[in-house]
């Protein structure tokens, strides 16, 4: 009897924790958006009728996708180089890549404030070289947000991909070469398909991370480059519009799931082995 019940008993505390602190609050948040006095879908209509809020949604998707693509490309190149290195150098490079993760998101986003500000390092440097005649405003632009987010997420991408690329046996690459595959063909027909599982995991991590980010768009995007995370905060804590905030949250969940499913589908089309 005890033996039959023991899995339930052991899984019990964690399940209860998840139920009380995750499923119930998220559930009640979502329910709030369907039980509005003005009709069950009214908050959503309000959201999509507002040009401003639509722009925020599109901007968030756009910034997250661009961040994901750049991170995938940069991360792949770095991970590929790292994977070729001798073991000792490899661990040093991995530690170097992970090092920024040891500081907080706020600290790292703040570093970009210092870099990109009106009197920031980049402007000062460009001015002193004579490349520009007066400081250009780089803060509170989409570019600033993307740059900072790429910087935040590339280590994650490198970590995910380095493991996968290291797992590709050397003799498989050599076999392809001996069969006449050019370095590009080896990359396209062997390495890329075999790295696909890692690419998907990395891309999903980066995309969901960027899509739900708050500190970076808040610091570097400000009011002008508002994203879903900052919009949610504004709705809840500035305007005290709880239903509006819940609607933003619900849309974020749906979009995230949609994009993740889409990415997995796409990757599976590229390679039947993946996923």
């Amino acid at each position, binding site marked *: 009897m005890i033996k039959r019940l023991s899995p339930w008993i052991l899984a019990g505390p964690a399940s209860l924790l998840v139920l009380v602190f995750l499923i119930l609050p998220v559930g009640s948040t979502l329910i709030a958006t369907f039980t509005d006095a003005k009709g069950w879908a009214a908050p959503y209509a309000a959201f999509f009728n507002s040009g401003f809020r639509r722009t925020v949604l599109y901007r968030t998707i756009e910034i997250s996708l661009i961040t994901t693509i750049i991170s995938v490309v940069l991360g792949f190149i770095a991970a590929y180089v790292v994977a070729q290195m001798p073991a000792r150098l490899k661990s040093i490079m991995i530690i170097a890549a992970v090092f920024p993760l040891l500081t907080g998101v706020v600290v790292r986003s703040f570093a970009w404030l210092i870099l990109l500000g009106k009197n920031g390092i980049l402007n000062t440097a460009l001015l002193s070289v004579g490349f520009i005649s007066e400081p250009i405003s780089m803060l509170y632009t989409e570019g600033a947000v993307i740059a900072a987010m790429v910087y935040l997420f590339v280590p994650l991408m490198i970590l995910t991909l380095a493991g996968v690329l290291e797992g590709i046996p050397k003799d*498989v690459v050599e076999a392809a070469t001996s*069969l006449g*595959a050019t*370095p590009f063909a080896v990359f396209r027909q062997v390495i890329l398909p075999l790295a696909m599982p890692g690419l998907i995991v990395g891309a999903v991590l980066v995309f969901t991370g960027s899509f739900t980010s708050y500190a970076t768009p808040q610091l570097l995007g400000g009011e002008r480059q508002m994203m879903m995370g900052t919009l949610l905060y504004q709705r809840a804590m500035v305007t005290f519009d709880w239903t509006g905030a819940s609607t933003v949250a619900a849309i974020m969940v749906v979009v995230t799931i949609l994009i993740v499913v889409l990415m997995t589908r796409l990757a599976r089309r590229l*390679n039947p082995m993946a996923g």
Partner: protein
Amino acid sequence: MTVSLTLDHITAHYGSTQVLEDLSLAIKAGELVSLLGSSGCGKTTTLRLVAGFLEPTSGTIQLGERDLTRLAAHKRDIGLVFQNYALFPHLSVRDNVAFGLKQRGLGGTERTAKANAMLERVGLSSFADRMPAALSGGQKQRVALARALVIEPPLLMFDEPLSNLDAKLRVDMRVEIRRLQRANGTTSLYVTHDQEEAFSISDRVAIMNAGRIMQLDRPEVLYQRPANSFVARFVGFENLIGMTVTARDGETVTAVTQAGATLKLSQSVFGAIPDRFVLAARPDGLAVSREGEGIPVTLGIRTYLGRAYQYQCTTPAGDYLGNGPLTELLDPGTAAVLTPVPEQCCILPSDA
């Protein structure tokens, strides 16, 4: 079209460590030559040099009329079979076989037709749509073989292709490899550490040690007439007895061991005998008897071999292994005599 492979005065280094020392090797068109040796002897390095995964420090590699020495690996047109199969895990068996054809720009239908025909030849037609993960070790290696053969390379190379298979399958596969290699008449380089495998499959075998070829010859010659002590020991001549000639009388040579035992050897049997030499013999080649002419020994442990008894024999100059007849059972501690059986022994130049 079959071509020859020539390695001319190849020297190779890993970092500052020399792994091949002035190695020359010529494989005739259509011939299968094995590189045989323990790990670290340079056999795999030699294969990787020919494949183009390594560059020699000096020397040239020539395949037929083509100079391979500095040619990029993917332009060399060599079929390679690896120890770990190295199949593409994301491609079906058919696509694995067709991979090389695709690189050569063949169209889809032609690729499929050729791959199917090749799979038929290795008996894997019904597995064409499977993924490599769903195959046994022997099937995987047959796919690897088909993948290397289908591009009709002028040179085939095998890197310990049977090491990961069980004993029974190993014998089947090596017959299979030999059959396909013979059928196409493809010049082949085969790397292994397994003497039986090398001897059974090869036209000629190169026994390697410390980055050098110790002897390159037909298996029969290596087995019966090794050229030096290293090769002799490698092919099972466990007794190497250092001797010095003391007298010559026509064809008969009198020589002594380091312990002073005297042997009379005939040059009509052994060929010319130098003044200092090593008498090499397998246990079969040293007959143990209670008395007679030969090397006096004290018998040690006796083991039963079925066809004979084998004795450990102690002399002041070293220990030897000899075989005695089943009809005469000798006990440990007894004094006995070792007599070389001329047909089973050979004379080697002295190492010193």
